[in-house]
């Protein structure tokens, strides 16, 4: 990797962004596609997790003829300057402000009943340039810029998505990660990861996807067959090639029953190959401690 610095008289020096892979001349302080700082090396933990690259306040990202400026550090704002031919779509609750001339309209989605019952946004909103429009989410954390190249896709846990350019397709699929508990005649189905996941795909032209994570963000590449256990609510996104299933773990010294939270840990097992990302501030996972009667494909460990 070559750091181009800021010398304008050395245009041949190139820099490949370790986060998004874009090759640039390295004369800017930030990667023009994802905003990652160019002059700061990646921070990798001893265990192999890579921290989301730092981003300077007011960093600019280029896409199409438009660009996006990331403002703030605690709860960052994504401020889009849309050119006439460009547009974005988003869940309407992330809209922070817009110029009056920016038109917004609803984007219909398939499977509205299922989405309604699953708690997913029923309406996706789209905005078309020209003009400024800005978005933020309601948690201290980081904005993750994922430039998608043609043919590239990513699976995102629900409610993480912030905004995407119109040339990225949006779909969703069942996670097939669930278990049921029973107490008397009452049966309850649990989805530790949510019933559905969002899938974003760039079919023909590159696009920009912005996610919001609570806390800090860490990623790692799993090799073929490599596996890792993560807290289900900490998962942010994964490559479509990464498979997942439940894992139950019973600590040593407890009885072999499914009766209480203290006697079992619930994990999400991820199988490579591909990239996975987690966030450090995650929602509390409630387990009512009742007997598990059925579950999706899972592994189990009794210590």
């Amino acid at each position, binding site marked *: 990797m070559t750091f181009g610095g800021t010398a304008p008289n050395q245009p041949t020096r190139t820099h490949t962004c370790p986060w998004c892979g874009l090759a640039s001349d390295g004369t800017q302080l930030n990667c023009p596609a994802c905003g990652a700082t160019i002059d700061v090396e990646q921070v990798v933990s001893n265990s192999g997790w890579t921290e989301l690259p730092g981003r300077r306040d007011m960093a600019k990202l280029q896409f199409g003829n438009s660009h996006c400026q990331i*403002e703030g550090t605690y709860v960052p704002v994504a401020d889009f300057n849309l050119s006439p031919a460009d547009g974005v779509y988003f869940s309407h609750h992330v809209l*922070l*402000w817009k110029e009056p001339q920016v038109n917004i309209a609803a984007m219909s989605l398939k499977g509205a009943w299922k989405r309604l019952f699953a708690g997913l946004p029923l309406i996706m909103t789209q905005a078309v340039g020209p003009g400024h429009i800005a978005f933020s989410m309601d948690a201290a954390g980081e904005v993750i810029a994922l430039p998608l190249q043609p043919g590239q896709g990513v699976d995102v846990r629900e409610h993480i998505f912030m905004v995407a350019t119109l040339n990225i397709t949006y779909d969703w699929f069942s996670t097939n990660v669930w278990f049921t508990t029973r107490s008397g005649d009452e049966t309850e189905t649990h989805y530790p990861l949510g019933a559905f996941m969002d899938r974003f795909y760039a079919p023909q032209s590159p696009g920009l996807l912005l996610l919001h994570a609570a806390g800090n963000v860490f990623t790692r590449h799993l090799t073929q067959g490599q596996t890792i256990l993560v807290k289900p609510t900490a998962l942010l996104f994964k490559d479509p090639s990464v498979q997942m299933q439940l894992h139950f773990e019973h600590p040593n010294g407890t009885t072999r029953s499914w009766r209480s939270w203290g006697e079992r840990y619930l994990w999400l097992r991820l199988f490579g190959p591909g990239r996975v990302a987690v966030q450090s501030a995650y929602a509390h996972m409630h387990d009512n401690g009742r007997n598990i009667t059925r579950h999706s494909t899972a592994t189990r460990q009794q210590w």
Partner: protein
Amino acid sequence: MKHCPTCNRTFDDTKAFCGLDGTRLIQDAPTPSVEQQYNPPAAHAAPVAPIMPAAPPAPPATPRVEQPRAAQVSAADPLERLRCEWCQAMNEKTALSCRACGAPLDIKNLVSESGWREAPRIKDMTEIHFGASTCQVEGEIVPVAELNLAQGDSVFFEHHVMLWKDDRTPMGVMPLQGGIKRALAGMPFIISLAYGPGRIAFSRDATGELVVMPLHPGMELDVREHAFLLASHHISYSYVRIKGLRNILFGGQGMFMDRFVTGAQPGLLLLHGYGDVFERVLQPGESIMIEPGAFLYKDASVTMNVETQKLTTGFFGGTGMNLARMTGPGRVGIQSMYVHHHTD
């Protein structure tokens, strides 16, 4: 006396370096008083009429020791001053942070391409001066405002933001009009007062920023309810009813806004914004649409009207999205985390 140009703390002449941040101390220079040096920009100087009876006018010649010397220095070398771009106060040329609002003077103003200026991130342990008292801002994620109140100074605040106090710092209650209305509207029924001499500290229970708003004479600021942390006694406090049923129902902030007005003397107003805070100055007639929950403050000259946009999709009918149209002239402040985040 010497002081640290980074955090504004004062030290005696025997010290060479700041014990807090290691910066080399500089000899105190005559400092012009903020009220004398302030030259309000056009956008901030909208003519306003106080809605509350202003405090009794102060004696025109405030007996501040610095004034005569400041005038001499200013006349001798008018260029050797740094103007704070956030509050417009003048500072001595060696200062690294503004004495009046704590904004770093050695860091470039952060303004987005669309014209939003980021509220200055106050460096940890920076001291702010108001009247004869000081306020030290401690911490950065959930900052604390620690006040050292001098005799004769006081501040008012909502009691739930109080973090700690010296046991001998006197406390009182501000008499307010319209108590029943305030109680019904969910606004604080009681505004507390703390008097000097003594120390008292305040913080809110969320990640965010302290926004220091030195209010210069003749200013009038409307603030989202519960967003104000404290204000000095030089500022009159009242509330205004939000006009229009749509604004009340869909404006995201209830029926009332706090209104702060300065009379003849400047005052200090501290707000707390969730997440990051941005400010934009609207020109006359210019408007911007914002999420109502993101509104933090505005000049009284800025009008606010909630507009609803229907978003429909086939059989399900869709939903309505409410946005507040803010129309200038004046300042508008917004916060980027506009819903209180519950971890569960």
